[in-house]
């Protein structure tokens, strides 16, 4: 779908929308949870994420959204699925090693992160491995339920030091 580049190049606007949506959902979610059947809520979330984030970010539905920590640029568009990119294969014109006509999403992510206010600098955080079991589930629901923050036992062990 055309048009999303305009948004993608305005990461400050997008991070504002993200922060607003997060606050609104956190407020509304306890109510939604009470009145709506669970399966239905999930279907609505998945569908609306597929449509809205699909359009804006080419979201791959990984279920653990880290967009706000990656310059509002979806890292799952990297063919190598890096969560801590970019790799060493970036071409001299800043394009992807794998898809020569595509700008490297991680080069874009770092550039956009530098423009961001609220979450700017978060790109320097070490992102844990992806939980592949969450593929195709709703990242918003996983966030609201705290599921996306769960890490393998061994991985968290080192942070306790």
């Amino acid at each position: 779908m055309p048009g999303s580049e305009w948004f993608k190049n305005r990461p400050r606007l997008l991070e504002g929308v993200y922060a607003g949506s997060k606050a609104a959902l956190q407020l509304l979610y306890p109510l939604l949870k009470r009145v709506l059947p669970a399966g239905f809520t999930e279907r609505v979330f998945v569908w609306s994420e597929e449509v809205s984030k699909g359009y804006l970010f080419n979201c791959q539905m990984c279920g653990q959204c880290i967009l706000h920590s990656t310059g509002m640029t979806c890292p799952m568009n990297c063919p190598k699925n890096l969560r801590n990119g970019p790799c060493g294969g970036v071409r001299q014109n800043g394009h992807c090693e794998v898809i020569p006509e595509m700008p490297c999403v991680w080069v874009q992510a770092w550039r956009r992160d530098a423009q961001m206010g609220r979450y700017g600098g978060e790109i320097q955080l070490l992102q844990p491995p992806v939980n592949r079991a969450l593929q195709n589930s709703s990242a918003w629901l996983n966030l609201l339920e705290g599921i996306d923050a769960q890490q393998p036992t061994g991985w968290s062990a080192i942070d306790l030091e």
Partner: protein
Amino acid sequence: MADPHHTSSAGEWESHGGESRLRQVLEAGHFAVTAELNAPDSADPKDVYANLTELGDVCDGINATDGSGANCHMSSVACCALMARAGYEPVLQMGCRDRNRIAIQGDLLGAAALGVRNVLCLTGDDVSAGDQPEARRVFDFDALHLLRTAQIMRDQGVLLSGRKLTTPPEFFLGAAANPFVPPQDLRHLRLAKKIEAGAQFIQTQYCYDVPVFEAFMRRARDMGLHEKVYLLVGVGPLRSERAAEFMRSRVPGVHIPDAVVDRLAKTPRKGKREEGIRICVEIIEAVKQIEGVHGVHIMAYRQEEAVPEIVERAGILREKPKG
């Protein structure tokens, strides 16, 4: 204890005691030399040892590549095991392209049991770079996940799942850096992230552009990174301007400035090999002067025989303690 490098009559491997010798060299403040072994397309160990005679005498560590360029060769774990058995100091290159997290952790344990102490954690070239582009790419982990996981196994003595290891592996952990591709002005930040994830040494991509490398090191020094990691600069002799063109257009992540290609093009055919070696020696001499550089990593693809000459002419040859 039996000689750790030989199998007992029962065919059992003795566990390979001791620390990484590469680490000892670096900690002692020596200028380290590592080199790349090209894994053979063969099932015969002799083909691994064939190239080692050239490299062994002048190197503190020898890297075994892990399907580099996404082409299949003998596995890096096997090459390293064969090297360790013969008393060399292997550096295991491990990428994320071909194995998921379960296989990665299993291979790390296996490699440690076979005597591997040095691991270079890589993302890996994409399958599309090789001669089997129809293969499935895995990339379950990225290089930083791999680094941190190896660190957890070593320091916490557990697998990622939390399950305890009877004997944790002893690793000297490395990572790659490529200061020569975009975003050049931010590459030091990814280096910082790799150090945070557990990198103790770095081997860089081929350096043919010293000013770009100098700028990278300046930024790294401003963050104090040169005191947190041992950095080995990747270098290698170019055989001709055609080899250079091939590398910069076909091998992912290799940047060669026009000036270098022109210099080779202007050299008469007979002198090209010598000119390539001279360029390599000049680059080593230049990067050696840069604060925070602790050694070089020589990648002499199909020119292993040139490595001793390069080391000697660059004035970085030392008496090696016999292992």
